[in-house]
């Protein structure tokens, strides 16, 4: 059963209780202000009610500037507390911890596809271990969606053409709603799923046991060969293109003098739009793979590239060996 309380959502992530505390603070201040203003108004309505038809108000004299400044500065102070407090939580929500496990999320009209770090895939269901930070790298295959888990106070737009990220650490086992919160067409309200927070041992059991869904996608190693990446991007490929071993997470110097971080977004862009950020010392000779590769295949390639260890450290993952006949 979904945990359902009629008045308050489940509090099931490290961030949830922080968001709630700030929310209660703002509600408290708001109620206090409202009660003060409304009771003042009611008191005035009674005390200064019109007693006879021709009566007019009495003029107020004296310096009112102090009063005006007071009731400007006090609200300013209060909203600034709200601002800084809210920004602190927001910044925390934008920075996944270093030990977070990497999951990939694909939104499409009208379903959620999730890919686990081990490669297992599911649709509209999402199993995660409790007390483990989980980082989501998300993209959309069509319109803008929004991945939302109210129990985690988590919400992030999922855009076509780029990656957005989010993270959470679930604190309570159970089953919670996943909603699409960005209106995305006819069956927007059916783009829902369930997230199952499990004990770590249950998660491991599920990982090896439970049936996978979402179809099969060629592994990154297979794609690296099938798309002929290996003809230029291997140490033995006559230096036409940068070697990708150990690249992920490192700064890259570009021909235009800029330096960028080799993260998921950079790798994705370099596959789809290779001429945009050319590495120093190389020519823009790589063809674009736009329309020739799906978002899910791009992620497989990125995951493969992430695993490529620097030369001499270790051999490339076993998957690098071409499995079946290439489909160039």
């Amino acid at each position: 059963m979904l945990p359902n309380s009629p008045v308050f959502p489940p509090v099931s992530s490290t961030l949830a209780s922080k968001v709630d505390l700030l929310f209660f603070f703002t509600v408290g201040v708001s109620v206090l202000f409202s009660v003060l203003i409304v009771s003042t108004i009611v008191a005035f309505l009674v005390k200064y009610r019109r007693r006879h038809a021709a009566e007019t108000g009495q003029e107020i004299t004296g310096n009112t500037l102090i009063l005006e400044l007071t009731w400007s500065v006090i609200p300013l102070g209060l909203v600034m507390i709200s601002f800084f407090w809210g920004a602190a939580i927001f910044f925390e929500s934008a920075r996944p911890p270093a030990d977070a496990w990497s999951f990939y999320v694909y939104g499409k009209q009208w379903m959620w596809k999730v890919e686990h770090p081990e490669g297992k895939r599911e649709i509209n269901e999402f199993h995660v271990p409790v007390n483990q930070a989980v980082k989501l790298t998300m993209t959309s295959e069509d319109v803008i969606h929004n991945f939302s888990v109210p129990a985690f106070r988590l919400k992030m737009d999922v855009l076509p053409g780029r990656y957005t990220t989010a993270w959470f650490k679930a604190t309570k086992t159970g089953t919670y709603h996943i909603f699409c919160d960005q209106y995305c067409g006819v069956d927007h309200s059916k783009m829902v799923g369930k997230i199952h927070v499990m004990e770590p041992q249950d998660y491991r059991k599920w990982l090896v046991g439970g049936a996978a869904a979402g179809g099969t996608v060629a592994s990154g190693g297979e794609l690296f060969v099938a798309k002929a990446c290996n003809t230029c991007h291997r140490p033995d490929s006559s230096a036409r293109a940068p070697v990708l071993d150990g690249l992920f997470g490192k700064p890259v110097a570009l021909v235009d003098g800029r330096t960028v971080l080799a993260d998921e977004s950079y790798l994705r862009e370099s596959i789809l739009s290779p001429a945009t950020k050319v590495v120093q010392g190389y020519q823009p000779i790589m063809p674009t793979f736009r329309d020739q590769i799906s978002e899910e295949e791009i992620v497989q390639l990125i995951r493969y590239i992430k695993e490529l260890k620097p030369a001499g450290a270790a051999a490339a993952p076993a998957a690098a060996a071409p499995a079946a006949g290439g489909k160039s």
Partner: protein
Amino acid sequence: MTATSSHAVSGDTGETNYLNATHGIGSWLLTRDHKRIGILYLLGISVFFVLGGLMAVLIRAELATPQGDLFSSDVYNRLFTMHGILMIFFFLIPSIPAVLGNFLLPIMIGAKDLAFPRLNLASWYLYMAGGALTFVSLLTGGIDTGWTFYTPMSTNFAQGQVIVTAVGIFIAGFSSILTGLNFIVTIHRMRAPGLTWFRLPLFVWAHYATSIIQVLGTPVIAITILLVGAERLFHIGVFDPKYGGDPVLFQHLFWFYSHPAVYIMILPSMGVMSELITAFSRKRVFGYHFIAFSSLFIAVIGFLVWGHHMYISGQSVVAGAIFSFLTMLVAIPSAVKVFNWTATLYKGSISLQTPMLYALGFIGVFLIGGLTGVMLGTLGIDMHVHDTYFIVAHFHYVMVGSAIMGYLGGLHFWWPKITGRMYNEFWSKISALVIFIGFNTTFFPQFILGYLGMPRRYHMYPAEFQTWNVLSSAGATILGFGYLLPVIYLLWSLKFGEKAPANPWGAKGLEWETTSPPPVLNFATPPVVTEEAYAYETSVPAKEVTVGV
């Protein structure tokens, strides 16, 4: 009828006024009289309000149960899209400025008309043409983009009459721009002798601030709509990531107008508030300069906060923080207004007639709408409630509740002036009460739904959310009856209402110094202003002014 004896100046005694000066449908459709054009707008927005309201009824009926049982999802999506488009572009934005502003602004400043009477009539025709096109799109199936037209939904995926609707909104936008321009020029150039800037009624200040937004903001939405149309027809790629475009760019352009548009809806309502509270407490407004400048401050800062609609859109975290900071600043002038209105009641002579009830209702809904706005401006809270019913509740409180309380309060306040008739006091008080109760019952439960996580624009929802949805739908029923009452007794008053005196409320302001309804040229003799605005207190001495500019 509470016409005070001391102010029972006889109004309509058979002399010529703007209503009976000429006759025939042609005399209305070709009129250049700002008062008649105001009435034409009143008819126009009433039609669109009824249409938009019917859609709201259907939406709330569907949401009374978790499953989709009245409509298909596609029809539901078209309903809420059209509800939003009609209510925002064809009711809320023109409501107070184009009806009450049109009618009152020249009279309040002692002018015979707006600066450009023909342009004013042209604006109405633009508005009606835009509305007609949108209505055609509705009749031919409507659209399912949401009123926000987010790309690439609207450009590459949506079905339906996107282009027709977009052109309708585009045309209506020019009505808004030209009305704003007309108001700005009129306020600058046509004030009566002695009517200095700081003697202007705050209603005029609010419309001045609103006009600035209309003139500067509306062209941006016009350009954005053109880009959406071009993208949809020719796939130029501005918003399409496939061609290197950016769908988030659309959101920046859209909210650059559509956030300030919220202030187009609320600022005029605040202007009405200042008139109502002073009139029904017979007292000079407290903090005149602070209220006047807070309107301008809201208009300016309002242009710098659009990114708070996009904290979780993929815009940078730093941008989010800057927009959040600027959003917080908007809270201050809003709070200052509420405090000053409250202080105006102090030592007043307060009468709870119908317009004042609406004014108090405004403060109630604006408090809730404004304070929840601070919560939404707070990054750490928005990331949970964004795109949920919390947002739906918040913006209905601010731009619907507050705007309609101001609009209806103003309509009841100036109805005797506009029509020359008094309406039924008992039923009008009942209506104010029923609308307040209905509104809060409809929308307050949606805050709870939103914090629980119910997403907006959901045709179907998990069963656990049903209780609050049923309550909301019940409230909508009450609200519907509340809106029906004024239609009945106001129309009734046209035929059977008592004749209104020139100044039924004993209020200050030039509009109360002319007959009800006013003559074609507004005043028998051009007025000269010798006192401050709202000089109710007998002790306020009229300052010496040099007459003549």
